[in-house]
């Protein structure tokens, strides 16, 4: 990559979360090669809780703790990206970026490729004892003092780092940049900074590329995924969605598009839905690199599956970094059983009443799937507002109950009681499923930047 190049930079986003389709990258890379010009490929695979799970995996196996599907994601595209100068930037390092980098080096060797230059971005993981005092201070006299003091229950503590170390690594010649926790849009802003050579306080351009990153960070959610609503919002080829490409211009604006001939759709409406996704104040989208402001932004359709985002403004970056702290938080038990045919709803409601009595005084979440479930509340207010079922009500209902408790044994009782409905509950109940798992709770705080410096290192010195 060269600096001060006026050519646009194309960034393809081949994953939007851990567990996304693993066949998305190959068509993107083929398109980036076909189009030519400067390009980068990103995988966003690190939701808030993914990192805590990765920490637990690393505790069990020191070589683990990075994206479990790393091989499946990279194997189809690694050779082509290296051959065509398309750097790969991802947070798939999760709780063990160095482990991920080692695995990529091994994968390259298995594929018979020359050793790639792999950079590892660090500084996000704040689990070391040295950070505890600063984190406790940042948490303050929080509402959860027990959790603060019960440090053995802490599973992960990570700062959201910004784009600068990614850009530095790319400028130093990295072909693959492996991150842990970085702000999702930084995966796009980093390559843009390296490519355009923007000043770190060029707020409007930084904000433009940050919002390009925001549009891309959920993968296909901008290109027709999570959008279809038959009869109202038609999306062709939902089973073969094209993942998005942002063409970032030197002024920080971008055009979002997707590989020619792929499924999905990109228009004003898909782009605006994703632009506002998980945004609060559109004039102040906080990232470690810039405060982005889309209150005056424009979204224009340039052609089929080509939409420009422009007019994004930027304000100086926040003084402090957001830190997520995850700790173990008791047990979640769930159980389900189905009732069908005449009076199914009445029988499901009776089963719920049996469980309430058996498990009292534990509060129980009750869903009548097919009547009221995900739209309802844990307190049961919506369910109580529903009219009493006439003639037995709905005819195909799945009862679902859930409770959480600090004590595993208490939670486990729910699973046994749901099972016992087979012989002790209302007539005709079938298809019991139960689950019991440990819960993780997440809190956040703001830490001064100086307390969590970031950096990058090459996995090994590049060959001279």
């Amino acid at each position, binding site marked *: 990559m060269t600096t001060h190049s006026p050519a646009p930079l194309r960034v393809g986003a081949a994953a939007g979360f851990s567990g996304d389709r693993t066949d998305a990258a190959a068509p993107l890379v083929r398109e980036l090669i076909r189009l030519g010009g400067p390009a980068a490929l990103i995988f966003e695979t690190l939701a808030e809780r993914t990192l805590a799970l990765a920490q637990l995996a690393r505790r069990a196996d020191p070589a683990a703790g990075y994206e479990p599907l790393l091989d499946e994601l990279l194997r189809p595209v690694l050779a082509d990206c290296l051959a065509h100068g398309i750097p790969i930037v991802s947070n798939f390092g999760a709780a063990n970026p160095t482990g991920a980098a080692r695995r990529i080096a091994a994968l390259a060797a298995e594929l018979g490729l020359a050793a790639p230059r792999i950079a590892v971005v660090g500084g996000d993981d704040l689990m070391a004892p040295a950070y505890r005092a600063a984190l406790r201070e940042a948490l303050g006299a929080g509402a959860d003092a027990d959790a603060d003091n019960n440090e053995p229950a802490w599973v992960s503590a990570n700062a959201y780092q910004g784009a600068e170390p990614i850009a530095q690594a790319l400028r130093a010649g990295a072909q693959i940049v492996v991150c842990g926790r970085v702000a999702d849009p930084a995966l796009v802003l980093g390559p843009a900074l390296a490519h355009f050579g923007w000043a770190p306080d060029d707020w409007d351009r930084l904000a433009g590329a940050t919002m390009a990153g925001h549009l891309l960070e959920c993968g296909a959610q901008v290109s027709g995924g999570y959008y279809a609503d038959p009869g109202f919002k038609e999306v062709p080829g939902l089973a073969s969605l094209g993942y998005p490409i942002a063409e970032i211009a030197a002024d920080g604006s971008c055009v979002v598009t997707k590989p020619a001939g792929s499924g999905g759709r990109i228009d004003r409406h898909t782009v605006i839905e994703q632009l506002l996704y998980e945004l609060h104040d559109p004039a102040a989208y906080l990232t470690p690199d810039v405060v982005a402001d889309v209150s005056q932004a424009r979204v224009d359709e340039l052609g089929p599956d080509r939409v420009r985002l422009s007019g994004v403004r930027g304000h100086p970056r926040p003084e402090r970094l957001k830190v997520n702290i995850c700790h173990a938080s008791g047990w979640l038990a769930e159980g389900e059983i189905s009732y069908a045919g005449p009076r199914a709803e009445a029988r499901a409601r009776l089963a719920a009443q049996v469980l309430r009595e058996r498990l009292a005084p534990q509060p129980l979440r009750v869903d009548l799937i097919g009547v009221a479930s995900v739209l309802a509340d844990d307190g049961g207010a919506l369910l109580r*507002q529903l009219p009493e079922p006439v003639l037995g009500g709905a005819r195909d209902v799945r009862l679902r109950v859930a409770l959480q408790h600090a004590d595993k044994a208490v939670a486990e009782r729910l699973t046994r009681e749901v099972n016992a409905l087979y012989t002790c509950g209302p007539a005709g109940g079938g298809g019991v499923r139960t689950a019991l798992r440990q819960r993780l709770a997440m809190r956040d705080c703001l830490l001064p930047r100086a307390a969590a410096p970031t950096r990058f290192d090459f996995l090994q010195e590049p060959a001279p």
Partner: protein
Amino acid sequence: MSAVPLYRLAHGRSGDKGNRSNISVIAWKPEFWPLLVEQLTPQAVARQFAHRRPTQVERHLLPQLQAMNFVLDGVLDGGVNGALNLDAHGKSLSFWLLDMAIEVPPALQALLLPEPG
């Protein structure tokens, strides 16, 4: 005037951060925008979500996009960390909002998206 569901005038998507849900509402046609601004007030949205006991509902308007963003505090029963809901993220909540009744004057009724089928 006659009342129709919001989904015939607009679409939207919900997202979550902690115990806070945000729901976008995007007009299908510019002609609907004034109607949405007038009727989709924070108070009206708070009423629609009364069973979720919102502690605060904020509305952010983006007139140049004919879009608005609602931020609902306290509606996720603690969010992904604490809720017992199958959909602890509240991903489905956008469709609860899209089911709200909107009064549409006769002059605009021809512009409404038709009910399928």
